[in-house]
C-alpha cells in the first residue's frame, strides 16, 4: 500500500479510445492504496486540469496512443500553469516513440511509461 493517501487522476485526453492501459494503471494504483479518479474518454486538456485542481490530486497520468502526445502534454501543462497548479505532477503512458521521451521530460513530464 505504498500509495496510501495519494490522489491520482488517470485521464484520456484527445480522441483516442484505447483505454485498456489507462484502466489497468488505474486498477494497479488503486490496489497500491491510492485514491484513483478516472476521467473516461475524450477529455480536453482544460477539463483534465480543472478536474485535477478540483479533486486536489497529487499527480495526473495521461494515456495517449494516437501519436498526439506532444501537443496534448504541452497543452495540459499550460492549463495547469494557468490554474496555478504546476505542482501537480504529470506522467504519460501509451504509444510513445522512444525518441520523444526526452522532449516530454524536458517539457515537464515526470515519467514516460510504455508497454
Amino acid at each position, binding site marked *: 500500500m505504498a500509495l496510501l493517501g495519494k490522489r491520482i487522476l488517470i485521464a484520456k485526453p*484527445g*480522441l*483516442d479510445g484505447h483505454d485498456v492501459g489507462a484502466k489497468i494503471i488505474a486498477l494497479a494504483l488503486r490496489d497500491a492504496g491510492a485514491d484513483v479518479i478516472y476521467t473516461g474518454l475524450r477529455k480536453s486538456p482544460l477539463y483534465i486540469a480543472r478536474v485535477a485542481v478540483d479533486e486536489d490530486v497529487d499527480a495526473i497520468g495521461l494515456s495517449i496512443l494516437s501519436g498526439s502526445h506532444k*501537443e496534448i502534454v504541452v497543452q495540459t501543462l499550460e492549463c495547469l500553469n494557468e490554474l496555478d497548479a504546476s505542482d501537480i505532477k504529470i506522467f504519460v503512458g501509451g504509444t510513445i*516513440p522512444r525518441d520523444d521521451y526526452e522532449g516530454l521530460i524536458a517539457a515537464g513530464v515526470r515519467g514516460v*511509461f510504455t508497454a
Partner: protein
Amino acid sequence: MINNQKNKIQSDSANEMKPPNVPNSFTPSGIEVPISVTPDMVDFSEVGSPGQYPFTRGIFESGFRGRLWTIRQYSGFGTAEESNERYRFLLEQGQTGLSVALDLPTQCGYDPIDPMARAEVGKVGVSLSNLAEVEILFDGIDVGEISTSFTINGTASISYAMYCAVADKKGVPREKLTGTIQNDILKEYVARGTWIFPVKPSMRLIADTILFSNQHTPKFNAISIAGAHVRDAGCTAIEEMGYTLANGLAYTDELIRRGGDVEKFARRLSFFFYVHMDFFEEICKFRAGRRLWAKLMKERYNVQDPKAQMFRFGVVCGGSSLIGAQPHNNIVRVGTETMAAVLGGAQSIFTCAFDEAFQIPTEHSAEIALRTQQIIAHESGIARTVDPLGGSYYVEWLTDQMESGMAKTIEEIEQYGGVEKAVEDGWLQMKIARRASERKQASDSGQNVIVGQNYFRRKNQSEGAGEIFTLDPKAAAKVIAKYEQVLDTRNSADVKKSLAALEAAAIDDNKNLIPYLIDCCHAYATVGEMISTLKSKWGEFQEPVRF
C-alpha cells in the same frame, strides 16, 4: 529517468525468472488440455462437410481452391494525397483490396478545425472531412473494380454515403461497389471508444445503413461485427467470439425491428477478429464461432437459406500480441497467426507490420507484412485442401470446448439483460478492464511467456526497430487549408438545405437516413456538420466510468 528504473526492474526480474521447460496445460481461455486427445473424447456428429450446415469445416465447398482469401492491408495517414500514393503502391504490389484507416476526428465526427480535433488531424489515419477529400483519396483508382474496407464506426454511415457519392461523381453505378464498413457501434462503447450518440439512435443508424446498402449496393458489406477490439482490450478468445456473436444477435433484432428480412440481410453480415498466438485455440475459435452462428441463425430466426447462415469473417494478425521488445520477433508472430487464420478459414486477412506495436509502419515493414501473406498463400501449401485439420481429434475436441464456452458467454449477457443494457451500464466495460488487468499480471508474474519481454531478454536490448516512420509535420496544416477552401467554394444554400432535410429525417423513425446523408455529401457538407445536426436531435452517449 523513471524509465531507466523500469528497465532495470525488467532486466532484473528477467534474470531471476527461469522460463518453464514444458508447455502450460491450459489454453489462454482457460481450457485444460489433456496430454492426448483420444477418439472417444470427440463428438464427430457436427463436423459435417465443407460448404454445408453447420459449416464447421468452412463456408465454401472448395475452400481456398475456389478463391484465395483477400489480402487486405490497413493503411492511411496524413493527407488524402499521401494515402492515395500508398494505395497505388500497395495495388501495384499485388494487394487485392484497399483498407482505409481514418483519423480520429473523422471517426468521432469532428471537423479538422475543431479544438477537440486539432492535435489528432491525420495522425492514425487519413482525414476525410468532406467529399473533396474522398475524391482525392480515390483519384486514379477504379472504385467499381477494387474492394474497399473502411475501418469506421461512429461515422460509418457517412463514410458509406461518401463512397456512394464518389461513385456517382465518377459515373460508376452504385451496385458495382464492393467493400466493407465496420459500422459496429456496440463494441465501440466497450472497447474502441469512437461512439457518438446514445445506443438506440446509433442502432437505428446502423440498421439504416445495412438496409439501404442491401438494396442499392448489394455486393457491399455494410457491417463488420468486430471482436478484434474487445480481444485487444483484454478478453479471451472465447469471450471475443461470444461477445461478438451476442452483438450480431442484437443487430439482427434491430434490423428485424426496422423491417429487414433476415433471410436477406443475414447474407451480408460479416465479422472481424484478431488472431493471437495460441495457434490451435485461434483455429478452433473460428471453427466454433462459424458453427455456433449458423445454429443461432437457424434455430433462433428460422433462417433457411444457407447463404444467410454463413459466417463470413476477416481477421487481423497482430495487435496487442505484438511486442515492443525485440520487435523483429513480431514477423514470426504474424506469420504464425496468419497460418492460424488460414486454417480457421478466414475470407480476408490483414497482417500487421512488426513495428506496429509502437508506430505507423514504414514502407519496408508494411511490405514484409504483405509478403508474409503471399509466402503462406503461395509457398506453404496450407491452402491446398479445404480445412486440412478437420477430423483431427484435438482440433474437433477443442472446437467443441470453445463452442460451449461461447454459448455460455452469450447466455451470461442475455441473463444480464442484453448487450445494450450491459453497455449502457458499463458492466461489459468493467468486465473487460478486469480481464486486461489479469492478463497484465499474468505476464508480469511470468506465468505467460512472452519472448523478449519477460523471458529471453538480452542485456542492453534495444527496443526500437531502426527505421522510423514520421508523418509529414505539415499534414494537419495542409488538411485544414484544403478544408477551408472547400468551405469557401461550396454552395452554402445546398449545404443548408441538405442538412435541414437530414435534421427532419433524424426524428422520423420511418425514414431511412442514408439518402439524406448522400445528399449532404454531394453538397460538400462536412462530417462535423452532419454529426452536429444529428447530435442536436439525438444527444450524446454518456460514458459510464467503471473500472
